[in-house]
């Protein structure tokens, strides 16, 4: 679309039509964001579908021509945290993610680099994970990520930097495990790293 003034004059079905066309192109990105937030494909698609419905229902409040990707990501993120708050299992799920990581590190055959990264991401505190994925993979500027997360730009920067360091540390701990060092040493490293990070919040 060339002029945003043209878009703002659209009403009714014509406006819905434009809105929906843009929304459809964002579905793959919403699914990817949801997948990294939840670490689980089924939960992620449930979350992304909920976000899609929320975005559609709130379409009147969106200003056509502005950043719809950031807007929908914010909706999805809010949905994720309100689901999480409602669920008493949230801390338990993080524990499960940590255990999956430990199991994988324990097995010298299975780890593929991408899986290791996925698992390292799963161990991160949620706010660091989302900051890293938004800036590092989602293509958002720090300012946009800050808006999506509802925090200061400086906060996003420090979360991204801590997340990067932590992922590197976790991957290195995993590599030690494969180098023939006792696997429980690597497990201990990962757990203490995850614990330290959660405490540093």
């Amino acid at each position: 679309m060339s002029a945003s003034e043209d878009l703002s004059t659209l009403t009714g079905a014509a406006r819905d039509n434009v809105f929906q066309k843009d929304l459809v192109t964002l579905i793959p990105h919403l699914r990817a964001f949801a997948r990294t937030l939840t670490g689980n494909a089924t939960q992620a698609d449930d979350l992304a579908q909920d976000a899609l419905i929320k975005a559609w229902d709130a379409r009147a409040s969106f200003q056509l021509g502005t950043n719809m990707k950031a807007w929908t990501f914010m909706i999805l993120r809010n949905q994720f945290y309100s689901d999480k708050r409602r669920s008493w299992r949230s801390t338990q799920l993080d524990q499960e993610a940590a255990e999956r990581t430990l199991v994988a590190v324990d097995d010298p055959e299975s780890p593929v680099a991408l899986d290791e990264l996925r698992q390292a991401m799963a161990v991160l505190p949620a706010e660091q994970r989302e900051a890293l994925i938004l800036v590092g993979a989602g293509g958002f500027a720090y300012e946009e990520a800050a808006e999506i997360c509802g925090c200061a730009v400086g906060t996003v920067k420090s979360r991204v930097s801590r997340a990067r360091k932590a992922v590197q540390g976790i991957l290195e701990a995993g590599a030690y495990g494969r180098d023939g060092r006792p696997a429980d040493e690597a497990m201990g490293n990962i757990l203490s790293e995850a614990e330290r990070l959660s405490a540093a919040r």
Partner: protein
Amino acid sequence: MKRDISSKDGENTPNGVDRMIDQQSSRPHVAAENSDEARLRQRAIGVKLRQMFDEVVNEPVPDEFLEILRRADSSSGKER
């Protein structure tokens, strides 16, 4: 006095001082090597992170998603 605050043997002997200077002078070199390595590792992590994300982006969108919008479309059509 020095002996009181230092716990290591020989830290206030000439030898000990030399050792400390050696350690200090070698530090910047090590740090530079580490930060180069760290930068390379971070770049590798960044590439993999995008790969991980794009893998999902490139998956075909399950039909339920489009179904949601089709349903939304027809219900909003009825309202008007």
